[in-house]
């Protein structure tokens, strides 16, 4: 190995970003070349010095608050625009309808089957919406509209805000204390978000009415590091999401199911 090459690879080597063969070549060269050995030693201690130098800044007081408020303003503007039908989706839907009109009954059978086979599944789409809603609730620090562990306060809070009445129970005695409730918007409709905690980890439980007669067994997903469980029973669709481990989320869902 030449001195030029050994110098060119010096930083990558010190950062552990050089493959094994090259590393061995460099080590051999440095043993034989005192100039390069010296350069490596000097750079190694300098990089250590950079790494321990006070280069990090702390975000100033008030920045977190400003960011939160700015996001909340942006979220407010977005909630309004989200209640309008999604332009892309409605265009697709119109073209489906157009197809039905033209091709008749055969097409109808065809089209109601095809999207289930090829389109993104309902679980995929809803799963993504649920993850986004969960993360937004954490980012905007807007986990709860009504913040209390009292189920008799949370449940009535939804009255008049939703066209259904979600079940709200506190499970403090089972390690899942109720933290409050929030209005959210999922699957193109208003949904209840009931917030629980498992230690320091928030759990969002989203509830909205199912299609008539729909019952679905529990299904677990993992997306972007979050676990999600969805099920439908008693006329309601439920999605639970959290960064707790999968077993703890299953335990939580079991409690909800029994309630």
């Amino acid at each position, binding site marked *: 190995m030449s001195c030029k090459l050994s110098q060119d690879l010096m930083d990558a080597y010190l950062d552990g970003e050089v493959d094994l063969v090259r590393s061995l070549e460099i080590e051999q060269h440095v043993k034989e070349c005192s100039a390069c050995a010296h350069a490596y030693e000097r*750079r190694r201690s300098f990089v250590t010095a*950079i790494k321990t130098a006070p*280069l990090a800044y702390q975000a100033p007081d008030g920045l977190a608050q400003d960011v939160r408020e700015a996001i909340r303003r942006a979220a407010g503007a977005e909630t309004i625009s989200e209640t309008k039908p999604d332009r892309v989706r409605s265009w697709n839907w119109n073209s489906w309808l157009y197809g039905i009109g033209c091709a008749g009954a055969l097409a109808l059978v065809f089209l109601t089957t095809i999207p289930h086979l090829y389109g993104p599944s309902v679980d995929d789409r809803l799963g*993504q919406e649920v993850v986004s809603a969960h993360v937004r609730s954490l980012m905007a620090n807007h986990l709860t509209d009504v913040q209390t562990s009292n189920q008799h306060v949370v449940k009535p809070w939804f009255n008049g805000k939703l066209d259904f009445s979600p079940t709200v129970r506190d499970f403090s005695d089972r390690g899942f204390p109720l933290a409050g409730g929030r209005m959210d918007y999922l699957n193109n409709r208003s949904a209840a978000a009931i917030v629980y905690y498992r230690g320091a980890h928030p759990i969002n439980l989203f509830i909205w009415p199912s299609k008539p007669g729909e019952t679905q067994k529990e299904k677990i997903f993992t997306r972007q590091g979050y676990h999600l469980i969805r099920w439908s029973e008693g006329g309601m669709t439920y999605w639970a999401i959290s960064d707790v481990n999968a077993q703890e989320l299953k335990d939580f869902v079991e409690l909800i199911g029994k309630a």
Partner: protein
Amino acid sequence: MPHLDAAYTLARWMTRNPEDAHDIVQEAYIRAFRFFENYRGGSAKAWLLTIVRNTGYTWLRQNRAHDVDSVFDDEAFEVPERTPGPEARLVQSANQELIHKAMERIPLEFREIIILRDLEGFSYKEIVDVTGLPMGTVMSRLSRARSRLQKEVMERAGKEIEREL
């Protein structure tokens, strides 16, 4: 608020100004919030710092174009290798305040890559993802950034020795 200190630190080193960093971080978090659908897993910190960096560059182009225009051809810029003298030994004793001051004097492209690697501890691959630079450029730019910083530290150390004599 996740990764706020890291976001602020990057913006602060990009602009070298607390108020500008404040504005950039605020704008970047709104963008992160709006474009959350584009997040495809992986390191959330790297994703967020990518947005901070892009927001920072947009801001700098609008307000301080000469900072961004200072991008130069990596390969054409050679840092002369110096023979180690008493200054080098002073560098090894790692005067960390000196490093902070020297950081203020090196170009933007060098400051950001040192923050990403030596402060945040990102891998070269992650730096490629955040900056959109080719791997070879990340390697050579980081190497040049450290050489330049080292030179800057030695010069300042030299001046301080002279002052003491």
